[in-house]
């Protein structure tokens, strides 16, 4: 097997991943022969238009959908943050964070620590309903991080947030990733978000990888730097949009 050739710090191995909805023989596959490796602590953004198969790939890695072909290996400690926070409305914030973990004092302490990392210490006992969109998504982030995941899967986690909240969330996410060092796969259709956050950007077009580049923009990344603009143009072109408004 070629698998053993992978370096030991590789946490995601995906080879020849293929998935078609319905009849796999006749229907066009949503993802078709994806080969992706993600190293420990690496932040990868998966860019693509709607229907390019990026969420399908994330769902395969996250064990949310086991119906696919190909060779895939992921760490046991994984966590997903979805586009909607998906907090249980009938559980207080703290209990949402500990969801699925043993109900011990130590776990509750870890959950409180995770909430303080997302600056929501004072919201531990409230109902999710009382949270704003950004707060709810921060709880979802705390719920993921409390598991100390080796692989963090983010499925357009900031897509439903307003622009100003999104900027704050980007900074928070980067700080948290620096601290916990999980490998991250961020699915997004936001080119700026991908460049701002990721070490590497993969563009998915019609279920295949059409581009796989390291982000060479120096940190801290500024949207108005030349490197940023160049990569932005390249990624937008890859996605089939010019980024300029024709008047």
């Amino acid at each position, binding site marked *: 097997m070629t698998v053993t050739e992978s370096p030991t710090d590789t946490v995601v191995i995906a080879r020849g991943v293929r998935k078609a909805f319905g009849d796999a023989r006749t229907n066009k596959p949503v993802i078709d022969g994806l080969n992706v490796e993600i190293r420990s602590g690496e932040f990868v953004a998966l860019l693509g238009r709607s229907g390019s198969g990026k969420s399908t790939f994330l769902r395969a890695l996250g064990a949310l959908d086991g119906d696919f072909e190909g060779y895939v290996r992921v760490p046991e400690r994984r966590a*997903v943050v979805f586009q909607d926070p*998906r907090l249980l409305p*009938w559980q207080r914030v703290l209990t949402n964070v500990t*969801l*699925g973990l043993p109900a011990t004092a130590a776990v509750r302490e870890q959950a409180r620590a995770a909430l303080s990392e997302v600056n929501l210490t004072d919201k531990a*006992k*409230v109902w999710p*309903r009382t949270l704003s969109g950004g707060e709810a998504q921060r709880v979802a982030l705390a719920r993921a991080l409390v598991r100390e995941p080796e692989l963090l899967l983010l499925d357009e986690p900031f897509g439903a947030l307003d622009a100003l909240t999104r900027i704050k969330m980007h900074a928070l996410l980067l700080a948290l990733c620096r601290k916990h060092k999980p490998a991250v796969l961020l699915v997004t259709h936001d080119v700026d978000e991908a460049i701002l956050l990721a070490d590497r950007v993969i563009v998915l077009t019609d279920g295949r990888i059409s581009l796989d580049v390291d982000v060479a923009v120096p940190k801290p990344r500024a949207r108005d730097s030349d490197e940023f603009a160049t990569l932005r143009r390249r990624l937008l072109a890859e996605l089939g949009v010019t980024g300029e408004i024709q008047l």
Partner: protein
Amino acid sequence: MATVLSRVRTSAPIEPSTTLVDPRALAEQRQRKQVVPRVLQRFLGPVLLVALWQLLSSTGIFNARTVPPPTKVVEAAIHLIADGSLQEHLLTSLLRVGYGAAFGIALGLILALVSGLSRVGENFVDANMEVLRAVPNFALVPLLIVWFGISEVPKITLITLAVAVAIYINTFSAIRSVDAGLVEAARSFGVGRAELVYRVILPGSLPGFLIGLRLALTASWLSLIFAETINARKGLGRMMTDAREYFQIDVVFVLIGVYAMLGLTSVLIVRFLEARLLTWRRAYDGD
């Protein structure tokens, strides 16, 4: 630009081209101060109805033999309470409804879980329950008498079935409408089958269950009336039959009042449960 803005800000109000109004003048019309509390206002309708009834009785427009005046009905109620007969019959009926509701809730919940949590269970249970719902409760009375005689069993069974159907239908549909996204998220965070049921699916279907409970309690009083036509020696139904036989219209009115109060009490019980169990649905948090 700045000069234009400052000029506008300091200039005198412009003469309006059309009639302009202060929006508060319109808003205040809808926000009048409540002189009588809302709770008391709710009683206004029934109180006026009784007053009208008394008036029509006193002026002789209502025949006292077929429509006794409210005063006469109250007298009858006091008499029935004084000799203890109302309490005795009421207790018998309450026990029947109590047992029927308890068994029915348990049965309805178990069937809803069996049917809601698995497709196989749904295949076995759901169509049968739909059929049972389609059959009028009263139509089951002859069968129940043949099977169980005229003891307490057919009476409680009839109530049990009515309650179970209402609980089942609503809880099953509530289980099936629990947000699939929440279930998926919970699973992805390592929540097992049993924990999924009691942490996600049961709380998620609680609002639907409570709607079922409200309908079930209403159905239980209705079934009680049917059940007590089965040769009941005691119970509100028996009192009603006797009152009809002896043409005690005032007693009939008392019993209608008792049924009304029992129905309202069940609604209050469910409202209390909703307030206690569904606090997470409220927008603002107490603590």
